[in-house]
């Protein structure tokens, strides 16, 4: 199945925005993901292995929390799993590219 990795977590997944996961269930696919990218683990799960409360998982367009079998739900190759963390704000500047004209100090 394809797991969509959101922008804030891509830095812990070698910058990738998707991951092709193996596994028969949501849980197994997530295990494959976090074994491949161990840094993701603490951002997705609590110390007790529960999905963090500010991270939501969607199997296709359904919230995994509301599926009858939750993370044990069977998945197929064509399913997608979206990781949707809460996001806030953006108080920042653009990235200056080496080939682009230099930006002046004042706008």
């Amino acid at each position, binding site marked *: 199945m394809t797991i969509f990795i959101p922008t804030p977590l891509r830095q812990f997944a070698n910058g990738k925005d998707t991951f092709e996961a193996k596994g028969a269930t949501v849980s197994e696919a997530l295990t494959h993901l976090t074994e491949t990218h161990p840094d993701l683990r603490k951002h997705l799960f609590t110390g007790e292995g529960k999905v963090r409360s500010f991270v939501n998982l969607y199997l296709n367009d359904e919230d995994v929390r509301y599926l009858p079998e939750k993370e044990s739900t069977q998945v197929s190759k064509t399913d997608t799993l979206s990781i*949707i963390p809460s996001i*806030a704000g953006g108080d920042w500047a653009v990235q200056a590219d080496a080939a682009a004209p230099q930006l002046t100090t004042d706008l």
Partner: protein
Amino acid sequence: MATATETSALPELTTDELARYSRHLILPEVGMEGQQKLKAAKVLCVGTGGLGSPLAFYLAAAGIGTLGLVDFDVVDASNLQRQIIHSTKDIGRKKLDSAAEKLTALNPALKVVKHETMLTSANALEILKDYDVVADGTDNFPTRYLVNDACVLLGIPNAYGSIFRFEGQASVFAAKEGPCYRCLYPEPPPPGLVPSCAEGGVLGILPGLVGVIQATEVIKLILGNGSPLIGRLLLVDSLNMKFRELKLRKNRECPVCGDNPTVTALIDYQNFCGIVPETPQEKNVKNGIPQITVKELKQRLDAGEDVQLIDVREPYEYQIAQIGGKLIPQNDVPNRLNEIDRNREVVVHCKSGGRSQRIAEFLQQAGYPRVVNVAGGITAWSDEIDPKVPKY
């Protein structure tokens, strides 16, 4: 809310207004009655920044009668890349004054109500209660949960939007029978675990896109027409230009809007979001890491002291501004410890002191005996030592 207003009680449109709103009036979905509903409506925009700018602009243009604005900030040069309601000449000015001026210039009939304050548990209900719809354009978790809870308690729908880098989210919360923000996210992330707004960056156009979606939802809620984003989370990916939609369900166990709510009054949202006020001791030592001010750093550099200054920001930040530290981006630090001399004191800095604090704690755990953090980072350096160092 306004949709419930009796037609007979709706305000008449003036001749000028009939001309101004002619493109609405000939739309069957708006028409005379819809335009009158807009004129009768009172909408509160929380924030006049990235999301609030396009939101307030379009609501003013559309003929909303009363627009409340909540903000206490002043316009900064770094806002102008996306906060299009403010101009270069407004730098240093109160955002409220700058926004109100643009909005009344666009639509002199608009009544702008300025709430020059930070929304808090003490004032939120009093401020929100007179409005029909709230549009949340805040950029921080405490205010977002505060707005959500206040909307649920008052029964006011909340057109929500949020942005990060190239991605946005939009939905309508706290509508009758619909889910609220807490149904989606019962708890906020602890500070420091996800990149903060100052570290994340945002494409300037993105809040325009998301803010206009919020404005559209506000208008639809007032008209009582179309399918609002109730029970749906719209995801906007501007880099790939993909829009996706996820189903949101009302959580029957939600502490605010569930069957047996436990939150029946506003709470301490700073505390809820894990933000603890700094104690005087923490100014000097935080989590076991001594903090130095930029003034102290400058004095030590001027005195020729041995200062091993490590800059843990990203290369593209270094390109914008630097103060002579050795660049080792935070995620590279664990693999580049051989470049940091553990026999010398290590002084770590970043943009504003958050990332460097975490790296300083990491270095201490890795056995570095003397590690200090530069409080306020390069931003404080620019403010207090050398204004020629660009702020970003």
